């Protein structure tokens, strides 16, 4: 038997700017065990609910993470709106859906780029991120921020997005779709890419269910589950199918994410077509009292927001269950028995967002 050695991976690692630390126990080139440790960017954002009033907390919720910022703000607002029995207007729901899908697009495109970077395909990485910039430009035009939008509020949206601006996004979406098709083709058909993705990190449908995975990681193993089908915001009125793959490996997860970008484009198009006229904000009076848990589909998977309010302007408790947290057990599972050179790919495959996980 060869001797074992331990290699530290992270918290500073070129493949991932986020601080996750893994102790990789190696036997030659093979990983026999991976011990994750997190806790490098804990900021205590959940406990801030007792110090910031419940409306100001929207800004804090948005800052849980830079990439899923819209989703975090939305999940928080949705939970508070349920407690206060606030019915958000139709138009606000549609606009929220559009912005949510745009952030899903930019998150997934970012992930494709990171994946290309992890397996060393630099030109593909740069090209995907060039395309992502167009999504960010649309978001900036609509909300005034590239990643932190500050447009959500309890009761709706703080600013309306005019119809002509929404219409002006349609040609940009066409362009993105066209350019992305080339990159997606490279991801899914290129033999060099396939050799790095196919069969790497295999987890069967039973395994992902048992490990409690969520999001594209779950759907990449053939499980048909997507919280958008719960019908929050305007997803009820929009026609879309849950995308799954039966490959059960990193290739399947890449396939799911790549297809979901194209699906997001179609959802945005439908929403822009259907968006009704009207107000985007309803007046909010009084303070929340009660508790609620909201489930939404973030780009990385299902996130849960629990809010407990006691009738004062400060909430009593907020808790966020983030998708990365649910996917870390699967990460350690896939790392067992893989080769050291596949570790970066497997870590990126769960689309880890450590800032979300630690808050």
């Amino acid at each position: 038997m060869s001797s074992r050695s331990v290699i530290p991976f992270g918290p500073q690692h070129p493949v991932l700017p986020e601080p996750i630390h893994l102790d990789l126990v190696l036997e030659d080139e093979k990983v026999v065990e991976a011990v994750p440790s997190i806790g490098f960017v804990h900021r205590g954002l959940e406990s801030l609910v007792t110090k910031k009033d419940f409306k100001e907390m929207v800004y804090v919720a948005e800052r849980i993470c830079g990439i899923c910022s819209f989703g975090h703000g939305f999940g928080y607002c949705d939970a508070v709106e349920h407690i206060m029995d606030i019915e958000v207007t139709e138009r606000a729901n549609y606009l929220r859906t559009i912005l949510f899908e745009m952030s899903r697009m930019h998150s997934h495109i970012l992930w494709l780029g990171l994946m290309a970077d992890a397996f060393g395909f630099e030109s593909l990485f740069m090209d995907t991120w060039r395309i992502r910039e167009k999504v960010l430009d649309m978001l900036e035009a609509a909300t005034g921020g590239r990643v932190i939008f500050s447009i959500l509020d309890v009761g709706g949206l703080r600013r309306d997005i005019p119809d002509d601006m929404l219409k002006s996004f349609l040609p940009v979406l066409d362009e993105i779709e066209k350019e992305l098709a080339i990159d997606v083709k490279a991801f899914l058909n290129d033999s060099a890419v396939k050799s790095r993705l196919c069969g790497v990190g295999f987890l069967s449908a039973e395994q992902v269910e048992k490990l409690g995975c969520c999001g594209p990681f779950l759907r990449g193993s053939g499980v048909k589950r997507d919280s958008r089908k719960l019908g929050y915001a305007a997803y009820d009125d929009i026609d879309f199918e849950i995308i799954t793959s039966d490959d059960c490996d990193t290739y399947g997860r890449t396939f799911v994410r790549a297809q979901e970008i194209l699906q997001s484009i179609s959802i945005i198009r439908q929403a822009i077509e259907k968006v009704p006229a009207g107000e985007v904000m309803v007046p909010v009076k009084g303070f929340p009292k009660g508790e609620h848990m909201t489930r939404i589909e973030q780009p990385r998977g299902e996130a849960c927001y629990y809010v407990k309010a006691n009738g004062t302007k400060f909430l009593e408790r907020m808790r966020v269950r983030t998708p990365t947290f649910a996917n870390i057990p699967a990460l350690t599972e896939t790392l067992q028995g893989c080769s050291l050179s596949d570790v970066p790919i497997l870590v990126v495959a769960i689309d880890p967002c450590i800032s979300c996980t630690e808050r």
Partner: protein
Amino acid sequence: MNNVNYIGQTLKNLFSKPATVKYPFEPREFPERTRGHVENDMDVCILCGLCQMRCPTGAITVDKKGQTWAIRPFSCIQCRSCVDNCPKKSLSMGQQYQEPGTEKIEKKFDLSDKQKEALAEQARIAVEKAAAAKAAMEAKKKAEAEAAAKATEAAGSTADVKG
């Protein structure tokens, strides 16, 4: 030949213009809604302090006595809450991002002379109004008291007649 289907894109990227803006030689064009930094029009501000109250990070300090408005740009998170809540619309969001610095400074702005005068004038009018209201109130009270005294007097005399 699946591993060459990306070469076309690679070659295209090689011979096309850079996708990035050549900052700082080419200025960046911002969309109209970009939230860069907060500006205050010191000709319009009335130092009401609402912005200070509604700022989630406490970046704004309004000094009514010293007649200054101050912002700590390194605390500001560009949330636009102050701009939305300013009753005089004197605050606005500038598009250029905040300039970097080596120190966490506070930027203080004096009220413009014109606005200082206007506020002083308003304050004077308010004081005068209050004084006038007070005087009117006192006069009214006095009149009422007199009327009441007269009434009791009259009642007394009628009682005398009856008795």
